[in-house]
């Protein structure tokens, strides 16, 4: 069902936790659908110097959070913004078709955290390629 990579990131998730006084927070999903992903970032000089997550959800939701946070750590905000759900899924050696939405959640949570940072810092939020469809994130 899941690749070894997914299982590894599920069993040993990287970057679990919270950041005290984060520079940006993004939470997406809802309990009704069974997944909530919350990502905290710490930003210095336009670079993500620390990132943590908390996730309520299935194995692939947790693994996607773990992988996504790994992939953006140390990246500039622009680089982090470019991370797509497909890249997350590929980094995990693939996700089952029914679970691709988990990688989408990860992308969205990162975008939300970055925009949260931008807004807090008086910047225009960037435009997300997803419409705000939290309530229907399953495909």
């Amino acid at each position, binding site marked *: 069902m899941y690749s070894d990579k997914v299982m590894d990131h599920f*069993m040993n998730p990287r970057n679990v936790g919270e950041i005290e006084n984060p520079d940006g927070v993004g939470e997406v999903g809802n*309990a009704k659908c069974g997944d909530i992903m919350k990502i905290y970032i710490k930003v210095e000089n336009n670079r993500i110097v620390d990132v943590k997550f908390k996730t309520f959800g299935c194995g692939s939701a947790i693994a996607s959070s773990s992988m996504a946070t790994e992939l953006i750590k140390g990246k500039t905000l622009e680089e982090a913004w470019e991370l797509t759900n497909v890249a997350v899924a590929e980094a995990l050696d693939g996700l089952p078709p029914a679970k691709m939405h988990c990688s989408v959640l990860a992308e969205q949570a990162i975008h939300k955290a970055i925009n949260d940072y931008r807004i807090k810092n008086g910047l225009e939020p960037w435009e997300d390629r997803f419409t705000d469809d939290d309530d229907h994130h399953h495909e």
Partner: protein
Amino acid sequence: MEKRFVYMDHAATTYTKPEVLEAMMPYFTEQFGNASSIYTFGRRSKAAIEEAREKVAKALNALPDEIYFTGGGSEADNWAIKGVAFANRDKGNHIITTKIEHHAVLHTCEYLEKQGFEVTYLDVDEYGMINLEDLKKAITDKTILITIMFANNEIGTIQPIAEIGKIARERGIYFHTDAVQAVGNVNIDVKEMNIDLLSLAAHKFYGPKGVGALYIRKGVKIDNLIHGGGQERKRRAGTENLPGIVGLGKAIELATSNIEEHNRKIKSMRDRLLNGIMEKIPYTKLNGHPEKRLPGNINVSFQFIEGESLLLLLDHYGICASTGSACSSGSLDPSHVLMAIGLPHEIAHGSLRLSLGDLNKEEDVDYVLEVLPQIVQRLRDMSPLYESFIKEGGK
């Protein structure tokens, strides 16, 4: 703590007991003759099938001639419901069932709705019990069939079958019960309980997969589901699954020979496990009826976490279990049963079913009580819902 293999998914399927397999063995390579053939070698196969039929009949207090072997529980459910519906269409087109049936019943009813039948899906209470007054009120002069499961596969709730049977018989309406989860766990008497049709599946009571049976009371008007050869007194075509049927016969004999003693043992382990879970893990809710439930069934919801990730972690520790979370089935919604008893989505997503059975030992209970609280805590520590809950002071 040493890693164990703990199978607590007996409600999904059981192993075939060695005694059962042993009874089946001669019928694969040696006594393999076609039971419909007239030579001695075929007649011996026939005799083995008839012996199995008698065992099933005895377990249900039915007549051997009222037992028909099928390819499993789902086929039996489909046959009972479609067969009665189509054969009695001239009398009416209304069927009554519940919201918590197995999909083999629910999806069959939905199919019949497309064919012009009307189906009432009865609500259940918070414990998964139907209300007999609701049932009576739902009956119309077009009602031809009531199909209500004996015991629920997810939450284990046992319905008042004898009372339902009485109501149905008084109104002259056929009563089918899906007893796939009940056989071997509950005493069944089709005569006393006024059951007209009953489905069962061998692999739920330590028999082989791929074989089941439908009890059809003498005189019930029913169409065939699988047309063809004259097997099963012309009602279910197909070369008989000889070893499977022999296995079913042996398994039902074993499973019903000492239900009380067996249940006492399973129930005592189950209760110790359940009490331990409730004690050790806060924010946990028991789903299903506190007493009227299958002896091996535990269904609990852990707040703030999701079932699939729970199962994966349990699997890591060698524990086999099940959940009603949507994420495990790949569908959008959590279990229809958990929805029907009124659970909010997030609580339903956090459900865990542990179904105990003959593979379990007391040590398994100890092991699960050691592993499960840690795992639940681990997932809660990762959960943003738990985080908010704690921050808000654990209201």
